[in-house]
Each structure stands twice: as C-alpha cells, then as structure tokens.
C-alpha cells in the first residue's frame, strides 16, 4: 500500500516536473543569461565575462552603466510608455469586442457552439505573419478596407483624432497598428471569456430577474462580476504579449508608434550593444511581472479574507 502511494506521489512529481524543467531550461536560465549580459561589458566582438580568472585570483566585474543609461535617455521611457499604451488600448478593444462575442457564443444553442468555437480558432490555421501581411494589402491605398473607410469619409475623423497621420493614409499609423493587434489577439480574449461564461449557472439570472432586476441590471450585477476571472485571464493573455510585440508594429506600425520591441531589435542588431539590449529586455519583463505579482498577491489576500 505504502509502495503504491509512493509510486503515485513520485508519478505526480514527474507530471509536474516535466513542464517545470521545461520552463527552467528554456525560460528561467535564458532569463538569467540575459540578466548577466545586461550587467556585462561589451567586448570587441562578444560580451566580456563577468567572472574572470587572472593570476590565480577571481575577479567579478558588474557593470550597471546600461541601467543608468536607460534612465538618462528619455527615449527608453517614452517607448515603454507607448508600448504599454498601445497594449492597453488593444486590450480594451479586445475586451469590448470579445466580451459580447463570447457572451452570445456561450448563450448560443449547444449544437452551434462547437462551430462558433471553430470559427474563433480558424485564423490559427493560417500563418500569423501571412495574416498580418494581408492587413497591409487591405489598408493600403486601393485595398477594400481603405476604399470603404475613405468612401465613408471616416479618414478625416481619424486624422483629427490623431489616429492616422493624414487623411487618405491608413497604413503605418496608430490606427493600422491597433487594428492589427486587436485582430491578432482577439481569440486570446474570447477563449477564456467563453469558457468562463459557458460555465455560468443561468438560474442565477432567473433569480435576479425574480428579485426585480431587469435583464440589463442582472447582466451588470451578476454576469459581469461572475466572469471577472475570465476578464482578467483574457486581458493578461492580450496585454502581456502586446507590450513586447515586435512583428505587428514592424509591419503595420509607423514612425508614430515606436514600441519597445523595435528598440530591442535596434540595440541588438544595429548598435550591436548586447548589454543595453538585455537591459531593455530585463526592465520590460520587470515592468510586466511586478504589477502582476502585486495583483496576484492582492487577489490571494482578498480570497483569504473571504474565508
């Protein structure tokens, strides 16, 4: 009996262990390497080692210059800010479009739900790069989206709101960037929301209605609070990768929409300044992880209090 228990305990360790080791080898260790590089000095061709042995003694050289420089040049700060801004805008749009979508999908007839779910996942069947390129064609002059928007004279409004640089030009603007990001990340918002909303006990809405809540009130007071976990999960799945997004701003963005991914690229491949590039990456990760950790902590405490 004991041996069987031990076997299962070990089996459980193995099951948890595999993804754990995977994350350790392919995420934590590379992150530590990046962290190390950010604190190193750039040699002529490659990065100098932090730890060197010379004449029988060990020398450790840590260089914080990259971090200092990051605070001195306002470019970095502005770029972080604009990355977070575009990521946040994308998240808000994804939520605004995704929530009603997920809601009606979850309330659709059980027989059509798999088909709707399939439609949400359909874009994954084509390469992401191809789909972003396709937007280039749609938003460029003579693309049908361009023709539609210009035909409706919506470009003037967009231009006065500062979303496009000039009337008649949609590509390489904040407008095209946000369209591309919302389009790409929408499924990541819809899927967790759908799975959350589909689980909801509909009798709660009947109870709310019975107690005098109009359907709209019942939605705000019951459905929305109960889907909080789905809203948070979907928003995180959109916000986090959007902050570090490189390909979409590169293809659809423009001079107005400098994002941190672009700066990273430049530091690595144009300036060949690996320590600076690594510093930018480390700070970006901290910018995302620290608020998340604080939020998680707060959630856990709130749950603890509820008990």
């Amino acid at each position: 009996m004991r041996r069987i228990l031990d076997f299962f305990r070990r089996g459980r360790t193995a099951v948890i262990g595999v993804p754990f080791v995977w994350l350790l080898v392919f995420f934590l260790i590379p992150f530590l390497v990046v962290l190390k590089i950010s604190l190193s000095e750039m040699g002529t061709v490659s990065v100098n080692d932090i730890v060197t042995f010379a004449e029988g003694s060990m020398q450790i050289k840590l260089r914080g210059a990259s971090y200092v420089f990051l605070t001195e040049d306002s470019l970095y700060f502005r770029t972080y800010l604009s990355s977070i801004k575009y990521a946040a805008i994308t998240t808000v749009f994804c939520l605004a479009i995704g929530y009603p979508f997920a809601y009606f999908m979850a309330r659709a007839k059980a027989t059509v739900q798999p088909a709707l779910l399939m439609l949400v996942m359909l874009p994954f069947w084509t390469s992401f790069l191809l789909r972003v390129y396709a937007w280039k064609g749609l938003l460029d002059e003579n693309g049908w989206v361009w023709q539609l928007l210009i035909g409706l004279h919506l470009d003037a409004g967009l231009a006065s709101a500062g979303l496009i640089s000039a009337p008649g030009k949609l590509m390489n603007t904040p407008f095209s960037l946000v369209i591309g990001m919302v389009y790409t990340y929408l499924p990541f918002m819809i899927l967790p929301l759908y799975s959350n909303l589909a689980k909801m006990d509909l009798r709660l809405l009947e109870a709310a209605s019975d107690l005098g809540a109009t359907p709209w009130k019942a939605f705000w007071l019951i459905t929305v609070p109960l889907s909080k976990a789905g809203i948070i999960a979907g928003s995180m799945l959109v916000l986090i990768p959007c902050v570090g997004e490189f390909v979409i701003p590169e293809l659809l963005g423009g001079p107005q929409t400098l994002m941190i991914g672009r700066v990273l690229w430049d530091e690595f491949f144009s300036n060949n300044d690996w320590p600076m590039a690594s510093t930018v990456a480390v700070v970006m990760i901290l910018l995302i992880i620290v608020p998340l950790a604080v939020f998680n902590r707060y959630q856990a405490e709130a749950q603890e209090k509820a008990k």
Partner: protein
Amino acid sequence: MSAVATTAAPASNATYLQIQDVVKDFSGYKAVNDVSIDIAKGEIFALLGSSGCGKTTLLRMLAGFETPTSGRIVLNGHDLAGMPPYERPINMMFQSYALFPHLTVWDNIAFGLRRDGMDKDKVAERVEAMLKLVQLAKYAKRKPHQLSGGQQQRVALARSLAKRPQLLLLDEPLGALDKKLREETQIELVNIIEEVGVTCVMVTHDQEEAMTMASRIAVMSEGRILQVGAPNDIYETPATRFVADFIGNVNLMDGTLKSDEPDHVVIQCADCSHWVGHGITGTEGMTVSVAVRPEKIALQRDPPPTEHAPHNRVQGTIKDLAYFGSFTVYHLQLASGAMLKVSQSNVARHRDHELTWGDTAWASWSPTSQVVLTQ
C-alpha cells in the same frame, strides 16, 4: 380523465390566486394541460407529482419564466399576463437555492430590496429583520459557499421573503437537504411562512414533504391535475387508482361489483371478497378496484372472526418482511399469486410466536377501511 380534475373549494372563500384553464404547449407536447386551481390567501398549496408531470412548468409560469400558451393567471385581482418576472409581486425560492456566489448573505438578501430603489436605512432594517427571522444574524458577512446546506436554504428563504411578496413560490424547497435535516426543516419552514402570513405555492415530488407542509395538495400527472384536497383527503379518499397508488402504499385489487345496496356493496376479487360499508354509484357486474392501505390490515395466525365473514379476510403465506423499526411490512402471497402488503406497528418490543418467513397467516380488515375506485 378530465372530469376528475375537480377544483376543491379553497380553505377560505376569497380566491387569491386563480389559475384558469392554463395550457403550456412545448411544440406539440402539452407540459401543462388545462389546469385550473383556486388558491386562498394564506394557504400553503403543494403541487405534487413525479418528474415531468408539469408541476415545475406550472410554477415557472407563475413566476413569469414561461408564458402560458392559453389560460389566465390572476393574482389578487390582477391578470399577470405579459408581466415579466421582475415586475411580478412574486418571489421564488429556487431548487438548490441559486444564491449569488459573489455576494455575501447580507447582500443576497438585500438584492431584491435595492432593485426597488428602497433607501439604505430601510434596506438595512429589513435585511436585519430577515436575518433574525431565519436566525442567521451571525452569518451576514459570509459568502454562500461558506454555509452549510441548511443555512443556505434559510438564506434563500430570507431572500425570497425580503420583498414581502404577495405570493411565495418554493421549488423543491428541501430537496437538497439530507433526510434528518429535511424533517426538522419542514416544520421550521412552515412556521416561518405562517408567521409571515404569505400565500405559498410549492412544488415537490416528495409526498411526505407535501403532506407535512401543505394545507392542500394537487396531485399532477402528465400535465393534468388528478385531485385537489387536504393531505388526509388525498390519502384516505383517493379519487383514482393513480392517486391511490402514488400517495403512500396501497393494495389495489380488481374485482366485480356483486351486490349494490344503499348501505353496502360486495365486491368479488380474485382472492377474497370485500364487504364495503357504504354505497357507490355503479351497476352490478361492473369492474372496479378496491384499495386498502397496508396499515389498515390486521395480521394473525388464526382465522379472524370478522363481522362480515367470509368477506374482508384472506389467507396467505409470508414471502417477505421488511423491518422499519417502528413498523414491519409483511408481503403476503395469496392463492392467485398476488402479493398483499400488510403493515403492523411494533407496539411491543418482543412478541411471542412472532410471524416470520414462510408462515401462513390471515389478513383482515374492517368494512370502512376500503376505498372503491371506478377510475
């Protein structure tokens, strides 16, 4: 069948809730088929039936979650047609309660009051009163999942009573509780409802629950009402074979009417003959059923000297017995092979010559214990 769907007079003369010729047709399937009931103010009325009999659909039409295909529902003089659930002066205690999991007990009870735009102090006052009524004042800050099943049930009751509804609906009110707790809660629930004085319609498949709680019961089957009456009327004077069989245990014997006198009738069945001490409306030779409840039959070793011998007694062999503590049920096999259930209460702790498996015994009953059923 429909001729039997009589509407018994409500306890008091004034009809408070009137259900009139209500039909609910789900694309060709009549879940509720031409139901009419009058319910008086302050009554606790139970809709009793097995699952799929239409009782829940009828309750949902009262709450406003379903619209009757035809017929009228009138509450306190107002026709409820076209009124959405959130405008009806009716509140419901849901099966397994449907408490809002993200709200505290306090907020759950306050939910309905706030929807009415009642001001804060009034809401607080009312919620406190409700918490006191169901003895949960200590638990106001808890979330529903932190309460036991019995406590959740009381929160659900408090929530449905908070708005002082003109009509309270209970959907299987005790279905989610275990047996012991259910018995205690039945009485408590009735006490609270009577204290508040609200008119109440409940739905249950549990006849014991209906009998202990309700002042009147409607037995439903296949969308129709078979009989309406006080619990003892339904038990002692069932109108049809179905009702007799559905409520409690019964021995149903088919037979023919041998003699039909004003003061008595004789019915010949396969194993025995019945001398029934009252007249019935029928003709000699017609087929009828005789229903005798197991607890109204006596069991002994020797042939009993009954008043109307050889009627109202039969000999058989004990094939099976089930001991329930306070009583024992014997299954007596009769000459034709039919089984007769006899229930004997265990008055003494030990009895000499106790009847057991394989014994031959005589069953007998009085001429007032049978019910003659023609339907």
